[in-house]
């Protein structure tokens, strides 16, 4: 048996999700755009899935949700689409230094198109300050994009506060990347005055290849891909009906059980934080308070130790962990997120991420904590003192 502590990267799909996907796939293969009855049945399924998703987010309507291929695509469509559509109204965009690459790199690309971008900093917990966002606003600002929960350290951003201050300054679009928070924390895009909100199914025990993008009614964004009228022309292409239906189910299950999950994971997190604190070689990255740190992520550094070594050592003990985020873990660079938090190259280059899932209990944590101690003991003589 493996101890899979990499749920921020992806999650094992729920059995019910797999069954649903297989059944829909076998039965409803027709194209939802076809006029015949089989096509219309597929269309109806798609719309039922959309209504089911909307019902999970209070104050939102089915027509405000589009299905994408995942978080990365959703973030791209939302950010590049909103920026390009509203270029005439202003040239200034705001995001943070700790966004996921699918957001951060989109802003970098927009800079090359001539947009001016402000990257607001974070504190040592990885948290953005709403006051910094407010201070960065100009008459030219057309879009603010801040993630809800950071994917490397789990920092929770003050989305409600930022939404409130943007509401007073009309006309600035607000995008929130909610990929890491849906199912783990309460989310309320409509209540937070969010115009664009992204989620991803495979982070909540759903299938790969399906994401959600909330586009609040009246929010105009330019499509990135053309060639069809599907998904309000924002995401053309034949819809992946079986994966979408299965995703709607995964989101429902994840969000309905969110409060219990958060409580259970918070206990696991506190347990792990205690263990890390007891190992002097390790240093915790991110906050300790539930208000600023999501319950399912723990990030720590072993300064002076290559994180790959720790990941491989843990794997010998059947524990699967991550360095940085899975999307950027192949590069040799130190973590941009940890750099923004601490400014220390050594610490930023040695971060390890552990993230919990529903299958984890006290016994799994027991194993993880004792193996962590063992691995550090073993590696200690190999530390590079710089």
């Amino acid at each position, binding site marked *: 048996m493996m101890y899979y502590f990499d749920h921020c990267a992806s999650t094992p799909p729920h059995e019910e999700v797999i069954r*649903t996907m297989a*059944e*829909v796939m076998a039965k*409803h293969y027709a194209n939802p755009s076809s*006029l015949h*009855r089989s096509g*219309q*049945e597929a269309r*109806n*399924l798609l*719309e*039922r*899935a959309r*209504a*089911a998703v909307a019902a999970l987010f209070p104050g939102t309507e089915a027509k405000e949700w589009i299905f994408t291929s995942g978080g990365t695509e959703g973030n791209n469509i939302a950010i590049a689409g909103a920026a390009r559509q509203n270029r005439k109204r202003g040239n200034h965009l705001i995001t943070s230094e700790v966004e996921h690459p699918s957001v951060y790199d989109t802003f970098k690309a927009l800079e090359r198109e001539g947009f001016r971008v402000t990257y607001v900093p974070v504190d040592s917990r990885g948290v953005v300050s709403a006051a910094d966002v407010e201070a960065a606003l100009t008459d030219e600002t057309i879009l603010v994009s801040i993630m809800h929960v950071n994917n490397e350290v789990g920092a929770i951003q003050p989305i409600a506060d930022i939404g409130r201050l943007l509401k007073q300054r009309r006309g600035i679009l607000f995008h929130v990347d909610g990929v890491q928070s849906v199912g783990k924390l309460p989310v309320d895009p409509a209540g937070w005055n969010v115009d664009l909100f992204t989620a991803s199914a495979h982070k909540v025990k759903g299938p790969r290849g399906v994401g959600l993008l909330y586009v609040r009614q009246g929010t105009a964004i330019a499509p990135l891909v053309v060639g069809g009228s599907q998904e309000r022309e924002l995401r053309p292409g034949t819809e992946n009906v079986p994966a979408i*239906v*299965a995703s*709607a*189910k995964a989101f*429902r299950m994840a969000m309905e059980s969110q409060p219990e999950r958060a409580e259970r994971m918070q206990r696991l997190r506190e347990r792990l934080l205690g263990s890390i604190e007891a190992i002097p070689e390790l240093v915790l990255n991110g906050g300790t308070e539930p208000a600023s740190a999501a319950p399912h992520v723990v990030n720590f550094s072993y300064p002076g130790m290559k994180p790959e070594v720790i990941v491989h050592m843990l794997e010998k003990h059947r524990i699967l962990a991550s360095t940085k985020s899975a999307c950027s873990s192949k590069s040799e660079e130190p973590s941009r997120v940890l750099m923004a938090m601490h400014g220390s190259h050594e610490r930023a280059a040695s971060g390890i991420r552990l993230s919990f899932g529903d299958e984890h209990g006290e016994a799994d944590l027991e194993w993880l904590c004792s193996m962590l101690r063992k691995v550090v003991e073993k590696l200690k003589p190999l530390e590079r003192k710089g």
Partner: protein
Amino acid sequence: MSMNPDMILIRFGEFTMKGKNRGKFDKRLEQQVRKAIRAYENAEIKSTYGRMYITLNGEPYEEIAAKLKDVFGIVSFSPIRQVASELETIRGAALEVMQSLPERPSTFKVSARRVDKKYPHDSQEMNHLVGGYVLREMLGLQVDVRKPQVELRVEIQPEGTYVYSSVVPAAGGYPYGTNGKAMLLLSGGIDSPVAGYLGMRQGLEIEAVHFHSYPYTSDKAKEKVIDLVRRLSRFSGAPIKLHLVSFTDIQTALAQAGQDSLIITLMRRSMLRIAERLAETSGALGLVSGDSLGQVASQTLGSMNVIGRAAELPLLRPLITMDKNEIIRIAREIGTYETSILPYEDCCTLFVPKSPSTNPNLTIVQKTEQRIEGLDAMIEEAVAGTELMIISPEIRNVVETAGEDSWF
């Protein structure tokens, strides 16, 4: 600041003038209110002459208010604080009511009414005692006895004192079904659902008839009409019957009659005949249509004359002089607009000639009908083959029932 009402005072409509029928209307309205709020078990309804009170007993005011707004026959209602008949308590409640108004008024007056003569201060004194207190507490507020922005009412009853001010307008009209039954011609466009709503608001019980021309029209057009009736059934407080008539054969025959410019006139006449037959079977004494004068070729006065002669039952046209924007505003308000603008064609938008007649000749129309072989039989057949659906707010549509429930 929001106030927490204890009761709701409901005011009735014009039917209070109707002498002998009065009792029937009152009773019907009470039934409708009861139905509308039946999910709120603790709420109690009490009727007195010309008024109705709901005691909330902790049930949510906002949700109940939203339901009451759609009950036909209610002209307006007011959230009420019920307090003990003691001056300080009444003053406190009065201030609370004033401060909870959605917009802070600049002028007001107090209208106190002492019904319970055991209470020491009379109505005049209470006006001053309560008004003076509110004035002291709300700086900038002034009294205007002739044209106040807000009238703060204080009713001292034996069981306690009612304090209220805001008057929330409701749908008005007559309780559903108190003015007879009619058959609504429902196309799926913007107008006919609004006509149905206005007919219902005037106390008509409605059954709907829809003409489809499969395969010239799609199933989606039918689903759209089902959704519209479902929406309307939220106002009726009772299920609505929907008659689905296959019009394909008649339409095909009319299209081949060689009178292209008259085809719409001919179709509408046949529809009226079928609707009238269905109305007679259902005991409906009128037809309701969404005609609006001059809007399209079939709704000119000339067309309406020739078309209307096909039926003997009164043809009610609630939208006849209404501006299109006004119709759209109501459609949005009652929640039919979004469905109505879905792009699925109904059978009237097919075979539309390049230049439909705006002034058809009745003699030519009648002669053309006589020449069409078996038209009467086709009408009989259409009536006999009518599919009946009973639609209530609870029924689930094709999207809501798509696939298997276990997939969701």
